[in-house]
């Protein structure tokens, strides 16, 4: 179990690095993106496998941890939280469920004259689309929550001067 968790955490780290690379991240943020993805994915996997959490709740907990992590790390390397947690969250995007939902629609349309078969595909569609939407909502809410709780700190992560006491009203 531990070995599998470590392998999956490493895979998530490299997946975040690669998918993040498409979006041109800062060089200094790359190691932190990998760490956030690895820790988040390991937590999600452990919660699902050990404690029996469902995918949405486990994603919420993992992304919350990643949100706090990006708030802490963002201050150290002067990067906005979103530039750290968005690429780190990319391995969590339920792409497989999303396009299984699309396939279910196509298969439903192909079997529209066979109600029993069509009903199965309709069932698949709802299952996949509900998982997709719920997971995307949970990961976004979880990672963004620290931004709302510590909004003043989150707004000034890229500030380079020591004059952080000046409050910006925006």
């Amino acid at each position, binding site marked *: 179990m531990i070995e599998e968790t470590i*392998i*999956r955490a*490493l*895979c*998530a780290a*490299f*997946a*975040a*690095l*690669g*998918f*993040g*690379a*498409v*979006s*041109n*991240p*800062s060089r200094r*943020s790359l190691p932190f993106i990998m760490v956030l993805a690895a820790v988040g*994915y390991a937590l999600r996997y452990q919660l699902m496998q050990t404690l029996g959490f469902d995918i949405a709740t486990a994603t919420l907990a993992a992304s919350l941890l990643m949100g706090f992590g990006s708030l802490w790390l963002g201050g150290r390397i*002067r*990067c*906005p939280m*979103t*530039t750290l947690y*968005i*690429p780190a*969250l*990319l*391995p969590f*995007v339920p*792409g*497989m469920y*999303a*396009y299984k939902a*699309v*396939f279910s629609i*196509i*298969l439903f349309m*192909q079997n529209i004259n066979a109600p029993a078969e069509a009903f199965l595909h309709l069932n698949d569609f709802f299952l996949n689309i509900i998982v997709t939407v719920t997971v*995307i*909502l949970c*990961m*976004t*809410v979880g990672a*963004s929550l620290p931004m709302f709780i510590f909004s003043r700190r989150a*707004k*000034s992560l*890229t*500030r*380079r*001067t020591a*004059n952080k006491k*000046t409050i*910006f*009203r*925006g």
Partner: protein
Amino acid sequence: MYQSAKLKETTGFIADYAAVLLGAGVHCTRVLRNSRRICEAYGLELTMTIFASNIILTLSDPEQDEICTEVVHIRQIPVSFELNAELSALSWKVFDNKLNIAQVKEEYSQIMQKPRMNNWLVTLLVSVANACFCRLFGGDLGSMGLVFVSTFAGYLLLRFIKKLGIDHSLAVILVSFFSSFTCLGLASLPVLAGQVNVTVAVATSVLFMVPGVPLITGVIDMFENHVLIGFARLMRAILIVLCLAVGLSISMVIFRGSLLL
């Protein structure tokens, strides 16, 4: 303090700055906050309306009782987290050090000229990432290898298609078809037949094009009350997922005569 020409110049800069940030995939609240911060440094007030492809902004100078309005297209540029970080830092620099508009423009153009990550390195990293993604979905080493090769080939094609300036949705259909076709083709070679988990490999071979960034920023925008642009971003992402499925369906029908994996 401000002559009309100066106010116009500042408005033009803020319009360009906001258009670049939005094009680079930054969520609306940050764009508004950064732009307002720069305006505040010059004693100006900013009002901005953001649509899916345009921005309307008005800068007003309360001291001189002058206003200037500009409508600008959101730039169609690739998502860039580096621009997000550097342009946010620039807004703080203007606010803290009171840089004049000429200095700001110079720093801005330096940031804009920074080169993106090397294309070959990105292609390699994306291929490794998708192979790792395959492992997360339960793929074995053989299927990871298949996904690596098909992603590499698909991403090369995507780069080529983008150079030709073909519409992005059409590009996604073509690349999705090509990647999954390559994966299915390799899996049917006698050497690999029955040795790899083809189902997971084929399903994962197109996932590198799932638009994760607009999906996440779209939801953030919705939560932060920018429903219009949030919805537009989500719809664009859903359209890309549909295109992915279409491309994959074509290769599935050619190879297996059915859509079932």
